[in-house]
């Protein structure tokens, strides 16, 4: 039993060590040549533009459901007109960043782990190295940059369509007038909330992509290993999103408010 725990701890420590090493090498590679600009552009498209549909749909329906649910509760206090406040505050501070990050984990986290994992088990990563290309610079850096910079943009889009979804429900289901809804949306927003909603996705985007790259590059064991890596990437990424969101929230609440 003790040796089992011992082995598990050693494995966990090794994973953390390798993850930290990947972060260090990636940070160094971002600022030193060679750069693979073409791959960076490609990843901005793959991670950013191609995730737009899923983020739009998630954001819209989350905002709409939130307005619908909170309308019922607010009615008990005769506060139906403030539904806009609730939707905007929830979307911008919490739901927008977290749900966008979770969607990205499902879409790009699994994709990156599967792609890099397949390249590992078919020796393509070794072939890259043998041809004089550093896989971190060629494969990891473009994905990390794209994840880091596109997650905030996608979150802004998600926040906006979420509030829009909330407006449609407020206007047509809850019968709240448009002017009351939109004025309550802006009334509840403080600059600090906006900062919180903007800073979080940078961190979450970075975490999702680095976890996926780490898991992908540690894949072994053929096609079964690739499947396992994909699952691990999504599970670890999703848990990390929720946990990191909590800690970042604590830090931001303590520093910017």
């Amino acid at each position, binding site marked *: 039993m003790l040796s089992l725990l011992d082995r598990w701890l050693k494995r966990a420590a090794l994973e953390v060590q390798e993850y930290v090493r990947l972060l260090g090498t990636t940070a160094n590679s971002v600022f030193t040549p*060679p750069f693979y600009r073409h791959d960076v552009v490609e990843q901005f498209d793959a991670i950013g533009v191609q995730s737009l549909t899923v983020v739009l749909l998630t954001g819209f329906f989350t905002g709409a459901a939130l307005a619908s649910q909170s309308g019922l509760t607010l009615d008990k206090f005769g506060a139906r007109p403030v539904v806009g406040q609730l939707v905007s505050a929830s979307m911008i501070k919490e739901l927008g960043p977290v749900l966008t990050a979770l969607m990205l984990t499902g879409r790009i986290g699994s994709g990156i782990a599967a792609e890099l994992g397949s390249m590992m088990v078919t020796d*393509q990563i*070794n*072939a890259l*190295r*043998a*041809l004089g290309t550093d896989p971190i610079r*060629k494969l990891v850096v473009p994905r990390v940059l794209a994840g880091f910079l596109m997650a905030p943009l996608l979150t802004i889009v998600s926040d906006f369509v979420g509030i829009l979804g909330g407006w449609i429900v407020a206007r047509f289901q809850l019968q709240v007038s448009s002017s009351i809804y939109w004025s309550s949306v802006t009334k509840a927003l403080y600059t600090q909330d906006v900062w919180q909603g903007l800073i979080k996705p940078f961190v979450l985007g970075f975490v999702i992509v680095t976890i996926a790259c780490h898991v992908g590059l540690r894949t072994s064991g053929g096609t079964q290993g690739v499947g396992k890596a994909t699952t691990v990437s999504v599970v670890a990424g999703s848990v990390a999103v929720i946990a990191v969101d909590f800690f970042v929230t604590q830090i931001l609440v303590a520093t910017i408010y």
Partner: protein
Amino acid sequence: MVEQSAERLTAQQLLDEPGAPVIVFDKVQLAFDDKMVLKDLSFTLLKGHTKIILGASGSGKSTALKIITGLLRADAGVVWVNGQRVDQLTERQMMSVRNDLGMIFQEGALFDSLTVRENVGYKLYEETNMPIAEVDKRVEEVLGFVGLREYLHRMPSELSGGQRRRVAIARAMAFKPRILLYDEATTGLDPITATTVDDEIIKLRDLESVSSIVVTHQLRDAFYVATHMAKPGPGGAVRIVPATPEKEREAEFIMLRDGLICFEGDADALRRSTDPYIQTFLS
């Protein structure tokens, strides 16, 4: 007098001499966890020669190639490539060593999101400043060498096993390395297709003066490469003919068993060996 002129030669000039050692393995050891994969492995590859490493699965053949290219790091021992000690180089420092090393992986390891053209020209497109037109010309040239010029725009998934290996050879030779490492280049191929791959190995060795290490457990291919040579024929055609005794001696066999060399010598000596393990392997 001769000694004095030899002293004046630079290291690079010495390496350019025929028969100079291009790869030296000196008491190399490597273990994965508790399993010792290579135990005191020592051998030398001479310029223009072929070293054929035979052995059962798990005997450490592919591991030796990965140590040469720096994909794996030896636990102990010294490795020299082109006069440079490589066993302690960092990944970044290894990049310059790899400019003169080409490796053909098992199954080819082609980049499946790139076309044949992009695969073959990968290093020249991505890692050099060579103009695109020149890269394209070189890609067509090497694809012509392996007889796949018309497959330029195909994806790797559209190629047969043999074609994939030949594209992998073209990719490895596109940047004109002086050393090529073949890791089970014919495994899983039918004998006829395997012969086309063997012919490319022979042509590269004899026409392009490439030093090579061929790792395989396919005896038929090993002996074919060792006992044949390429001869330029009329009109640029290349003929594969039985090797002269001198040429045959340029191909040396190494047999690995449990990470140790259990045989080293030419094709004749291997055939005549009375070692029971080798006899079993050859039968």
